[in-house]
């Protein structure tokens, strides 16, 4: 059967993460045997509108398959206008995911804006397999406090021994936490030399990677999840080319030394 034919998936829950972002939970038919790794993505369709790549935000250690959808275009609008019980199409999972077997035990996870959605999969994976990892820290920044995702989970992460730093670009009277860049959090967190997983705008990725290298992280230990326009997910349509690589098959996670020149 063609790899372009999606699996019908039902929306079973919708949570509001921020004014323009929903967390949707999908039910995959049992006969599909859907399994994935943190950092992988799926192609989601709204029939009649088309298909777009969405990173998986849930951890494979948990039952629910969740996607974080931000209103960004025609198809994400279509997904967000759907209701519980509606059926979407899904293909995947695609991409390589984070190379957990190559990553060191100490991990820093740094996310900026909606880029944090894919990293939450990794954070919850680590929480559920805590003994397999060493010192873990999370640095996450959003534009304002209203734009922060997954706020109800930070406490649980801290309880699991993860050092969590949160910052916003623009503070207000209700926000008592950090104001400033994600890079600024790196000086405040308990950082042990190891691997890093970063996702966010290019400028944030570069400044975080530079800071980490100053702190002794090796360039090849820094992994970046890249966002690209995609159509096929199977390395044929050429929309997601990064040099000779296809972000959909060879990525979306690349070591920083491979993608530095395009960031």
């Amino acid at each position: 059967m063609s790899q372009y034919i999606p699996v019908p998936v039902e929306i079973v829950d919708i949570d509001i993460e921020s004014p323009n972002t929903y967390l949707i939970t999908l039910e995959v038919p049992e006969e599909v045997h859907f399994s994935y790794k943190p950092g992988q993505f799926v192609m989601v369709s709204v029939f009649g509108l088309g298909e777009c790549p969405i990173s998986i935000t849930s951890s494979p250690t948990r039952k629910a398959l969740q996607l974080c959808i931000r209103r960004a275009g025609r198809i994400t609008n279509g997904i967000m206008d759907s209701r519980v019980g509606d059926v979407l199409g899904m293909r995947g999972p695609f991409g390589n995911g984070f190379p957990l077997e190559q990553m060191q035990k100490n991990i820093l996870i740094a996310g900026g804006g909606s880029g944090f959605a894919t990293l939450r999969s990794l954070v919850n994976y680590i929480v559920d397999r805590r003994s397999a990892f060493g010192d873990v820290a999370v640095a996450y920044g959003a534009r304002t406090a209203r734009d922060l995702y997954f706020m109800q989970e930070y406490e649980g992460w801290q309880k699991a021994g993860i050092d969590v730093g949160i910052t916003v670009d623009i503070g207000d009277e209700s926000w008592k936490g950090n104001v400033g860049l994600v890079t600024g959090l790196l000086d405040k967190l308990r950082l042990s030399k190891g691997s890093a997983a970063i996702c966010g705008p290019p400028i944030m990725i570069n400044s975080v990677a530079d800071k980490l290298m100053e702190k002794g992280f090796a360039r090849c230990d820094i992994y970046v999840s890249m966002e690209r326009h995609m159509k096929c997910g199977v390395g044929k349509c050429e929309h997601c080319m990064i040099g000779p690589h296809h972000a959909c098959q060879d990525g979306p996670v690349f070591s920083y030394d491979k993608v530095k020149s395009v960031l």
Partner: protein
Amino acid sequence: MRAFLPGDRLKSLLTALGTHMDVVAPQLVEGAVVFASWKGQEIALQENSLLPPLEFLLPQRDVLFRYTQDSGRYSFVEPSAKFRLIFGIRSCDLCAVAALDKIFGSAPADHPYFDKRRSTVLVALNCTRPGENCFCSSSGSGPECQDLFDLLLTEIRDGYLAETGSPAGIMILKEHPDLFLDAQESHLAEKRDVLRNANSALPVREERSAANVRVAMEKADWDALGLQCLNCGSCTFVCPVCHCFSIFDAGVPDGERLRCRDTCLLSGFSRMAGGANPRISQGERLHNWYLDKFEYIPQKTGLAGCVGCGRCSRVCLAQMDRWSLEVGR
């Protein structure tokens, strides 16, 4: 296996083959050579078509599947490819199909492409009439067909020398004993002569070899070339190796998911939903096109990403010198 097909029996052969498959052959449509479904029209072999026969493997409108909705539940139906014979495909375009077979064959292999590919019989034609922009001998992809054909024809005096390249080709000879005659030594000698003449008719264009284009790429001023380029994408739509595509839906609640040809030279190609675009300037996109043709495709497939058909030069409205990469104005 070899045989001789007298020239006046070509139409009879295609008519016979057309009874059990769709025969596609080059013909004149409004004065231009076009590969199209053949229903007895005059066959036009005077020059290669401007649009490559790629249309029959990666159509401009390719239905990936049809979706139908019933009480919120969806079901999908895949179309299946029709049996087709492409007559008159030349060496450059065959080399392009070889590259596409590797590109679409890399895991996971592209099912809609190979569904059509496996249903297509290729009757190739050794190219004895190169066009003025052709340079296949400099790119190592012609004028003689080397591989991938089911049946290969060479136009010689009074007809065609037919040579088989696959079981499908052998079947064509065996099923039409009334049309084919035994091939003689003299036919083979004639074939050698016409190919020698074709080779000498082809201008030697060493500057267009992949190695020399790569040298030109190093020196090129991509920003200036980007300004000269009109961003029309024509070169990519006539290129037999270009295969970028988009996918979209047509129809609510029932409809079709389609893929159609797209081009990496247009600004929207890599633009993401949020508006960020990793290849924002035309110069960057043009550079990426050259890198794909002259570095990435050869690295990944071991085959040429440019097959020397010269079609991109034929259509370039900006009259770019595509090989020296010197800015023209």
